[in-house]
């Protein structure tokens, strides 16, 4: 058995300032710590999920300056200068138009993938407010839902897009 509690703790720990959902957080972690785990376990934003750890499933998707980004593949060092948005910061009370569309369609089953799905959809709809079915498929195909909520997600995205359109008119 080995017992080397923080044997090297002074070596590469650094202080980082992260801007998450409009709040500044100072934390001391290794430079290569994945943003995913820092958000979840250091800062308590547990809405962002761990699915694969290798950029393959999308469960960990957050926004860096509005762009959907896989937090499992992003180091805290890289994220330092960006505005980070997690599912908790999308809206105060779950009323972002995309969250509402998800609510209307009753999308989640187990729910585990849904933060990532919503974050991907929001950044995609910002870029492309009037998507075709093919646009939706190709924007969302990197987010796995093992429960198979894809048909409801499609409906929810169309609903959110329609709303955005009518709001723009």
């Amino acid at each position, binding site marked *: 058995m080995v017992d080397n509690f923080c044997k090297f703790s002074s070596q590469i720990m650094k202080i980082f300032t992260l801007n998450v959902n409009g709040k500044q957080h100072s934390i001391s972690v290794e430079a290569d710590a994945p943003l995913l785990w820092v958000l979840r376990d250091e800062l308590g934003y547990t809405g962002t999920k761990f699915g694969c750890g290798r950029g393959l499933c999308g469960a960990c998707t957050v926004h860096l300056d509005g762009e959907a980004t896989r937090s499992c593949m992003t180091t805290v060092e890289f994220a330092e200068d960006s505005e980070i948005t997690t599912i908790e910061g999308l809206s105060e009370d*779950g009323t972002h138009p995309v969250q509402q569309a998800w609510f209307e369609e009753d999308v989640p*089953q*187990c729910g585990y993938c849904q933060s990532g799905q919503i974050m991907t959809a929001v950044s995609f709809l910002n870029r492309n407010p009037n998507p075709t079915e093919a646009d939706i498929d190709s924007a969302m195909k990197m987010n*796995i839902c093992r429960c198979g909520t894809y048909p409801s997600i499609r409906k929810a995205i169309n609903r959110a897009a329609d709303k955005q359109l009518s709001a723009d008119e």
Partner: protein
Amino acid sequence: MNNIMDRRDFIRVVSTTGSGLVLGLYLPYTNKLNGKTKAATIFEPNVWIKVHPDNSVLIMVGKSEMGQGVLTSLPMIIAEEMDLDWSTVKVQQAPADKDKYGSQMTGGSRSIASSWKQLRKAGATAREMMISAAAKEWGVPAGDCTTKASHVIHNMSNRKMSYGSLTEKASQVPIPRRVSLKNPKQFSIIGKNIKRKDTQPKLNGKAQFSMDVQLEGMVYATVVRSPVFGGQLKSFDEASISDIQGVIKIFKIENGLAIVARSIWVAIKAGKRLKITWDKGENDALDSNKIKALLVEKSKKQGAIARKKGNVKKAIKSSDNQVEAVYESPFQAHATMEPMNCTADVQKNKCRIWAATQAPARAQKKAAKITGLPIKKVELNVTYLGGGFGRRSINDFVYDAVEISKVMEKPVKMVWTREEDMQHDYYRPASLHVMKGAIDNENHLTAWTHRVVAPSILFSQLVKMPFPFKEKLDIISVEGAKNIRYDIPNILVDYRMANTPVPVGWWRSVYDSQNAFANECFMDELAEAAGKDPLQFRLELLPKSSRERNVLTLLAEKAGWETFNSGPYYQGLSFHKSFGTYVAQVARVTVKDNTIKVGEIHCAVDCGTVINPSIVDAQISGAIIYGLSAALKSKITVSNGRIDQSNFDDFDVLRMDETPKIHVHLIESDAAPSGVGEPGLPPAAPAVANAVYAATGKRIRRLPITIQDII
């Protein structure tokens, strides 16, 4: 409270403190293996109804919510008969507590099917108690009172009292022995598209999965297991990770090596880098070819008889139109979206656990054994499950966390990497299906034989048997094979056990998935040999006005089977009954540019009374998508005694752009409700395989369907 119960005694007033009325009800659990319902002798309620003085109602459910909607659909049934105002109903997942909730095992699509009657009676009983209390209060006959939206109403005097204000009095009325249930025509909650109660927290990040639990003073751990099945830890070289800071402790546990660190990512990094030497044991040379060879070898001899009708030998002999085929299915991983994990806090005199489990009572019992604590001192909280599909009915990941926390004397969050999760699953068994059929001169199907050759779940998970196994019938392994629905005069179904060191377990729809693939593809081969349309061929073998026939007829009509004009798409059909539910599907497929695309699936379902159509639709669609992953993309293979796949790159699953348009058509029915979590899955693969045949002329006898098998 006197705990002895008689047969009819399934509901009781559990307590009436100042906080309202609490009713406990006991729902019997039907054992899938023997179909028997456990006769309860001790009153152990597994659903609680709490009526609060503010007239809100809390319903606590001792079933695990893993996405199937049980936290919504079970309370809907109570609310219907009790005439509750649904908007004021709150639901909550009950923690593991055998004394309070009985068996909480969730699986086999049974949650509603096994408790429908009792839930209705419970709701009706509670309603009647409210009426009695109000009638007494007003001094009017109970028969003059009605209920609506959590109120008792006396129309003649225009008076009305809320359930909340009646809790005290209602607790004193004797529990009625006989209650009348609503006529389904009066239903105002059952059968309606009511929103799930767990949707909102799943959209704002607040829903708590076991991975989200944070405890004061918690440390983090991951576990590395022997990559070779059955291997044992020999040694590890601590120096190989000496440059990684933050590792707290590395030690052996029952299932492998625990790496404890101050964060999960440090634990994972250390676990990946640590040099570990394993004693590989005797399975080092195992691979998929050897497993296949074992299945083929086993398939040559007759096994344990699962069903025998007429005389197949004679029927086959006397026919000169015989068809033979062998079908093959690979191992499959569950790959729930949330990898296995658990948080445990083992202290000197108690233990707290947060687990996403389908079998909480079992987890609690084993945790008591590991910690040496009495079971009462083990608190097991069931969080939301990030997918279950059968994987979480085996609690190995819970025991890892408990063992580690016991050693650390601290709360521990234990998380497996996706790689560990995929390589240490309890897989859907690989299987081989030897089929024979005979058609007579009038083009009728006269004989059907189906030999299922597969590892046994029953004899590896439930029944401890010494190696080597004798020829035994694993009754689960022939589900959907022995009870094939077609009326064929001569049938023989047998099973040959072919166990391997690869652990096997319950995978969404279990053996029905492989057996339906073999059945329904072979039915198409026979239809062709008989010169008949696949739909007509099946209909001829199903009794008039049977539920089987109705579901196929509805499907044909909705999908437009007969009038479909193929164009680039070709269609295939399938039918399978599982978990009490009848499902038929049409898949429309195009094969071009080296890809197989499923464009559309029509699915007709008879699951008896539909509690919540949108939940049923979601479950059926989800099961189809899960089935399509296994039909078109994923498989688990073995080399050098270990699983080849490790993450979603080499075990890829269906993505949105590959998902067909799915149309679910529900049969209207007053029959008792049956399962919906699994039955949508088995027909998916054969419908697609039959459509691929229509498109290419190539029979698909092996899953997943690959383009190489077609061209």
